[in-house]
């Protein structure tokens, strides 16, 4: 379950606050997956006191620079919290960031990124420090996103590992060194359009099973 409480001292009216929160959550919390399971209790509250504005000041109105600045700060806070959640996923040893570009539609970008981020085989490979890009290819291929395999490209930790749907020889020792980073970045270009997205997850370790095999006891 995720629960978040966010506050601001900016003056924002309730209906505008909701629009801003929906956008921020859509680009942050709703882009996190630890185990592909959606909780019964997920909730995110946003409260605006207006206490930093002079008495009687006009509320921030959508379309103004003030509202844009507020949305930027809100988005930063939500994305920061979302990344913390992924990094602290049960049993996690690594934060995993999956960037998908070149998708035909935003829905395709999301489907492909989520397929990679939810794949137990990709997540265990990350845990094992294995740059096993074939599992990434498998995940995007089964995702339902529209693309041609000969147009796909994959990087792991900034290292090209697949181009044109085919393997690219890479330095395994360098890959192992890069897997020491606390954040593992997987980049995928589907070569099918201009849509892009980012999904955050974590690796999958023995501890996830230990924690969840014992949760109620």
């Amino acid at each position, binding site marked *: 379950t995720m629960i978040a*409480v966010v*506050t601001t001292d900016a003056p924002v009216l309730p209906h505008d606050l909701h629009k801003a929160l929906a956008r921020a959550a859509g680009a942050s919390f709703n882009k*996190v997956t*630890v185990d592909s399971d*959606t909780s019964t209790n997920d909730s995110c509250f946003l409260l605006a006191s207006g206490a930093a504005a002079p008495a009687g000041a006009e509320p921030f109105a959508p379309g103004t*620079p003030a509202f844009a600045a507020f949305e930027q700060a809100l*988005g930063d*806070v939500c994305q920061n919290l979302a990344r913390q959640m992924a990094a602290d996923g049960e049993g996690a040893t690594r934060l995993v960031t999956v960037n998908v570009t070149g998708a035909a539609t935003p829905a395709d970008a999301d489907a492909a990124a989520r397929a990679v981020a939810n794949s137990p085989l990709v997540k265990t490979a990350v845990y094992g420090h294995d740059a096993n890009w074939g599992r990434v290819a498998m995940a995007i291929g089964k995702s339902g996103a529209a693309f041609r395999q000969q147009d796909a490209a994959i990087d792991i930790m900034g290292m090209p590992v697949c181009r044109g749907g085919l393997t690219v020889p890479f330095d395994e020792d360098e890959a192992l060194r890069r897997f020491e980073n606390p954040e593992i970045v997987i980049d995928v270009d589907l070569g099918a359009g201009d849509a892009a997205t980012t999904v955050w997850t974590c690796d999958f370790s023995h501890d996830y099973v230990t924690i969840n095999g014992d949760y109620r006891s």
Partner: protein
Amino acid sequence: VQASGDPAAGFAPLRPPSSADAPPASEPGGVTRARGFRAVGVHAGFRKDPSRLDLALVVADEPCACAAVFTRNVFCAAPVTVSRAQLGADQPGEPAYGTARAVVVNSGNANAATGERGLETARATTRIVGDAVGCPADEVLVASTGVIGEHLPLEPFETGVPAAAAALSPDGGADAARAIMTTDTLPKEAAASFDGADIGYAGCTFFVGGMAKGSGMIMPNMA
């Protein structure tokens, strides 16, 4: 083609490292970084371990604008149903916004799959918090996290909420962030600010701050 992980050997990376890839920086503080809010985290008794905080309270000095998004899981918990209704949304997915004064969160028990009894517990919680902080029950939002399918006892709220309300502080955000943890290994806080000078609010600095928990059963799909 002879290539290696070295971009110079053949293929350029899809995403050259740049500052644009850096995650947003966070300033110190969390849910009480913004002015006008106090918070607290206490052990109320939802958990057996008395050293473990299990009740968080975030309270605005005055009733304020509020919005929320909630899980789309059909099997949504009682606190989701009650809080959504408090913010004027009768059905899942309807925009939920209005006025609120307080948010109360317990950890250790999700109050999910608990039927009418769970709903009444969530509603009673809003009354208890409202009495303690001095606001109507309909300005209190409630959330729970923990085990699904067990009835949430009301007694820890009856004893814990008055004690929590008495300890509310502008410095209480960190304890509140700890109190909502379940299998999380770390509390999660973040804050950001922006200057009002160039946006028509000269002399003002605005803050956004927050706390979150989440470690397992995580693929939020909130609307």
